[in-house]
Every structure is written in structure tokens, then in C-alpha cells.
């Protein structure tokens, strides 16, 4: 892969843009179309592109499967934990109203945190799936 100069330069140029767009989709999901699922997939695309061009070994140096497994679990914990937080604040599960000073502010906080959890899990699971398929014939 080391000879594909054009591919490498173009992807180096594209990867930051893809990640930036993923963050836009993630955090703008509050006001327009977007959200954790889409952002997570877009984010993972950046890594998959990197893996395709630079190889699995160098990709696994940046983010190892173990870290991905922990991140995937972390996302679920964030999601379910938000629900537990609202339980502890005296409301029903996943009732965001109590998370902020006013119900509207609470809804904003709640959906942002939830979508963050979804985004983290989706992105890391997508990369993990790609890793494990790509690395299958290696071991």
C-alpha cells in the first residue's frame, strides 16, 4: 500500500473532513436531521477508509480492538445511565425533563447525552465489525 501516493494524500485530506462532518451530524441532530446512528456510521467510515489505505496493523495502533470494546460498552452505559440518572432525580426512566433547570433545557441535555452514547457505541461497533472481518485471515 505504501506506493499509492495519490490514495494516501487524498485520504489524509478526506479523513479530517469526514470526522468533522460526523461531529456536525452528531451535535446538530438537536436542531435538524442527524443524530447518533448516522454520526456514528460516518465517524467509523473515516477509520475504515484509513484502514483500507494504510492497512489494518497501523489502524490498530491508533485504536485497538480492546479500547473499541470498552468504548462500545461505554456508549450503552451512557445511554442506560442517563435513564438511571432521571430515575434517581425522581422521574420515570429516560424522562429528560428533570435533567435541566427547566423541562425544555432538560430535554436538550437529555437528548444530547443519549445521542452521544448512541454515537460512541455505533462508531466503535462499526469499526469493530470491520476489524474482525478484515483481520480474520490473519490469525
Amino acid at each position, binding site marked *: 500500500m505504501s506506493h499509492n501516493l495519490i490514495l494516501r494524500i487524498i485520504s489524509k485530506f478526506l479523513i479530517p473532513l469526514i470526522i468533522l462532518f460526523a461531529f456536525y451530524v452528531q451535535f446538530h441532530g438537536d436542531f435538524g436531521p442527524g443524530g447518533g*446512528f448516522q454520526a456514528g456510521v460516518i465517524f467509523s467510515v473515516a477509520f475504515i477508509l484509513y484502514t483500507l489505505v494504510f492497512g489494518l496493523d497501523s489502524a490498530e495502533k491508533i485504536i485497538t480492538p480492546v479500547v473499541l470494546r470498552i468504548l462500545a460498552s461505554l456508549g450503552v452505559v451512557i445511554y442506560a445511565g442517563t435513564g438511571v440518572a432521571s430515575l434517581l432525580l425522581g422521574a420515570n426512566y429516560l424522562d429528560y425533563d428533570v435533567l435541566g433547570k427547566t423541562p425544555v433545557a432538560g430535554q436538550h441535555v437529555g437528548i444530547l447525552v443519549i445521542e452521544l452514547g448512541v454515537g460512541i457505541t455505533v462508531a466503535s461497533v462499526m469499526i469493530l465489525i470491520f476489524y474482525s*472481518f478484515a483481520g480474520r485471515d490473519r490469525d
Partner: protein
Amino acid sequence: MELILSHYNYWIVIFLMMAGFYTVISRGNLVKKIVGLNIFQVSVFLLYISIGNVEGGTAPIVIEGAEKYSNPLPHVLILTAIVVGIATTALALALVVRIREAYGTIEEEEIHEQDQSL
């Protein structure tokens, strides 16, 4: 003719559904079965999304000048169903990879023969 044109979304859905279902049943190749299963699932996604459409409605975001909105709920449901579909496909493909490692083939009949000869 009227019946076909005014319900074109249903015809597309039914065509895809039958094509996918037939592929699942008739193909012996495990990967092709998964492809069929995906087509089958997508047809249902289309069914949901097309019934959520409101004629002349716009995307369900509150903006000035828009009065009619499409129903967003089917889209949200299908987003969930798509995620479930992805998980199913990934799991199925992972199983196929391991079946191929264990049997050296992904043709249903050959796998069956190997199991019988044991």
C-alpha cells in the same frame, strides 16, 4: 390500470418482498441467502416509509410556510429496524465466515453432505 398506478408503492414493496423471499428459499449459497434476506427486510422498510408520506407534506421540521408535514414516526421506527437489520446481517456474515473456516465451503448442500458423512 388505475389500481396499479395509484398504489405503485405497494407494487414495488410486493415485488421486492417476493424477490427477496424467493432468494432466501431457493439459493443454496449462504451469502446469497443473506442478500435475499436483506432485500426482504428493505421491502418492509419501504412499506413503512411510503405509508408515512403525506401528499404535499414536507420534512417534519417546524419552518415558516409549511403546513403539512410527513409522519415522522414510521421513519424513526425504521431507523431502529435498520439498525436491527445491520446487526442481523453482521452476525449472519460472521457465522458464514466461521462456517467457511469449519467446512471449507458456503454451499448448503456440500455442508449437509459433510455432516451426513460423519
